[in-house]
């Protein structure tokens, strides 16, 4: 039992600490550990977990960790796998930002803050483009433009919470788009 717990911790720790660019980037690494290395699941099983993980909202890496951990060693297994996924990188972020905040007034830190903005802007533009393509691929350009146009209007001209906008989009997708796809 102890060894299983350790393997769960180690497998998910390695997969996530090597995955750059957020949860989605870690998926192939998780698959490597789960399917090829520890044989906790077959490729088909992992594919199913990934499919249901994508059908549910929320961060993908933690959902996979919770499910595989549970599958291998019950609720405690789910806890260990999720812990190994989140805690190391979250701790690193907290420590780094604490260091940065300590030297907030230094021109060096100010320069770093300034310099990082264009990179974030470009990363966001690329991510936007990716989501635009995903959307046109699945529902076509016209549906995308209409939904996007309404969303833009709602977000810039009204005080509606973005969460409500997403819930409305869910409803539209469930009621209307489900018949056209």
């Amino acid at each position, binding site marked *: 039992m102890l060894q299983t717990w350790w393997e769960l911790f180690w497998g998910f720790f390695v997969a*996530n600490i090597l995955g750059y*660019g*957020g949860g989605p980037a870690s998926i192939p690494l998780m698959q490597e550990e789960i399917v090829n290395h520890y044989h906790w699941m077959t490729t088909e099983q992992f594919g*199913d*977990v990934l*499919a*249901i993980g*994508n*059908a*549910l909202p*929320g*961060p993908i*890496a*933690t*959902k996979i960790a*919770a*499910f595989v951990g*549970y599958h291998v060693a019950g609720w405690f297994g*789910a806890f260990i796998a*999720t812990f190994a*996924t*989140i805690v*190391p*990188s*979250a701790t690193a*972020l*907290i420590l*780094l*930002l604490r260091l*940065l905040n300590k030297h907030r007034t230094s021109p*060096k830190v*100010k*320069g*770093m803050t*300034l*310099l*990082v*903005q*264009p*990179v*974030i*802007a*470009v990363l*966001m*533009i690329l*991510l936007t483009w990716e*989501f635009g393509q995903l959307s046109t691929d699945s*529902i076509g350009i016209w549906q*995308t433009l209409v*939904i*996007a146009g309404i*969303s*833009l209007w709602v977000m810039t001209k009204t005080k509606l919470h973005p*969460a409500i906008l997403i819930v409305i*989009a*869910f409803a539209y*997708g469930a009621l209307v*788009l*489900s018949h056209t*796809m």
Partner: protein
Amino acid sequence: MGWKDYNGLVIGMVRTGILGYGGGPSVIPLIRYEAVTRYKWVSDEEFGEILAIANALPGPIATKMAAYLGYKTKGVLGAIVSVLAHILPTSIAIIVLLGSMYALRESKVVAGMVAAVRAVIFVMLGMMAYEFAMKAWKGLGKVFAALFGVIAFVSLQLLNIHPGIVIAVFLGYGVFHLDLVQRFKSKGNSDKGVS
């Protein structure tokens, strides 16, 4: 008073946890809304920094940000509460839904929901990109903002260099940027003085 902060953390993080589709990156605009606009845990500049450094570190993005925002408002316990609120609902859902896995996977309703929300996220990400670009434009000045924007685009998109590396290099240069600009300016001024 203390409880109210936790309340905000839990509500904000549950909301971002269950409404983000397509993994961590898609949920960033929602987290930004809760953290900057709704609950004012951090300023917009600080959010940009947190996002940048979170991107430069390995591991899932959204949970890292949830942890830091919780830590910032309420210390270590805040970080734990924040992360749990963000991931527990969907983590439990995937375990409990094991039985109905295939039904959900084949469901047209679910497929429709995912598809509709992508267009919304597209707009949210676009607005965020615009705001960060404006911030760079104002903070660095037009020339530097355009120059660094182009360098970032070329390295990320055309050369396919990993975002973590690009951010690390920009951060590294950032340490010297203000100093260099200063030196260049004063040199320019003294040159003018001489002539």
